[in-house]
C-alpha cells in the first residue's frame, strides 16, 4: 500500500511516499530524521492488520514541504537521510523539492 503524506498546493506536490508493503517497521528512518517528523505505528488504514509501519506524524503532514526542505541538499544529487537509511527502499519524496529549488 502506498501512502502519500503531505499536500499539493499552488506551488507544487509535496509528499513523503511510504510503501507500506515494503516497510518492515525497523524505524531507522525515524531515528535519522533531524526534524523528528516520522513515527512507526499500527496500520491506520487496515484495522484488521497486525503490521506496523512508518508514517509522517499527523502534525507534520501539513507543513512537510518546509520540514523536509533542509534535507534536500544537492537538489536530488544526494538522498536525504531517511531515504539513505531505508534498506527496503520504502520511503521516497515527490519531485517538487527538486523542481522548486533549482540552482541558478
Amino acid at each position, binding site marked *: 500500500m502506498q501512502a502519500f503524506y503531505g*499536500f499539493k*498546493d*499552488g*506551488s507544487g506536490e509535496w509528499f513523503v511516499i511510504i510503501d507500506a508493503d515494503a516497510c518492515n517497521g525497523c524505524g531507522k528512518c525515524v531515528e535519522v530524521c533531524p526534524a523528528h517528523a516520522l513515527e512507526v505505528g499500527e496500520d491506520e488504514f487496515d484495522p484488521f492488520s497486525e503490521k506496523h509501519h512508518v508514517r509522517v506524524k499527523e502534525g507534520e503532514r*501539513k*507543513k512537510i*514541504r*518546509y*520540514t523536509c*526542505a*533542509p534535507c*534536500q541538499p544537492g537538489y536530488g544529487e544526494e538522498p536525504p537521510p531517511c531515504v539513505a537509511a531505508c534498506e527496503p527502499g520504502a520511503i521516497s519524496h515527490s519531485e517538487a523539492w527538486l523542481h*522548486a*529549488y533549482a*540552482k*541558478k
Partner: protein
Amino acid sequence: MIVVGIDVGGKNAHVVILKDGEIAAQGEAATGIQKAEAAERLYKETLRKAGLKQEAVGRVVATGSAAKRVAFADGIIADAAADARGVNRLFPLARTVIDVGAEEGRAIKVSPEGKVLDFAINEKCAAGTGTFVEAMARALEISVEEMATLSLKSNNSIPMNAQCAVFGESEVVSLIHQKIGKQDIAKAVHDAIAGRIASVARIVGLKKDVVVIGGMARNAGFIHSLKKETGMDIIVPDDPAFIGALGAAASAAAGVLEGKVKAKVVELDAVEKGQA
C-alpha cells in the same frame, strides 16, 4: 546620467530614479488590475517629483512579476538579480537576501559583488506571502500596521495549525472565540509565516549578513519573529519595498540587461567611473 528602475509586483509598483548615481526620486503605487497603465502613471508621477522630463532618461529597466507589461522599459532583469544588486549597493556585506512581497517570497544567496549564487522561491501560495498577513489582519479586524505593533506586545507562543491563508482565517476566528488576546494571535500569525520563510531561506543557507526586503520587511512584528526563528540578526533597509526597483535602476546604469538594449543617452564616463 539618469536611469530608472521599475518593479511591478503582484500588488504594488515601485519606481526609483537615479541621477548620476544618487536617488533623485522614488514612488510607490498599487497596481490594481490594469498593471501596465498603473506602472506608466507611477513612472510619470515620479519623474514629475524629480523635476525631470521623460526625454532626459537614459534607460529604464523593469523587474517584478509583471515586468513584461512595462511597455516603456528598455530591458528586464530577473527579480532575484534586482534584489541582489539593490541590496549589495546598500549593504556590501550582505550574503543572504530575503524578499517577501504580496504574492511571492524568495531567498537569495548573494556574492560579495551582488550576483545571485542561488535562490529559492515561494510562489503561487498565499501562505508564504504578505497576502497571508493581510488576510489574518482582516480576520482580526485591524490593520496590518496595528497587527505588527500588537504582536510585539505578546509574550506567548500559540502555534498556528493552518498552513493556508484561507484556513488560517478560520483558525484566527476560532482563536478569537476562545478569548485568546489579539496580541497573542497577531504574534502567532507572524511566527507562522516567519517559520515558513526561514525554511525556504535555509535551503540557500542563512549566511550573515541577512537582509530582508519587500513590503513585509516593514512589518516589525514579522521581523521580530524572523529574528527569533533564525537566531540571527536581521538588517532591514529604510525603504525595504524599493530595493528591487533600486537594483533595476543600478543595473540600468551598469548596462546589464536580459532583454533588448535601447540606450537613448549614455554617458560612458559615468558608467566607467562606476558612479551609477
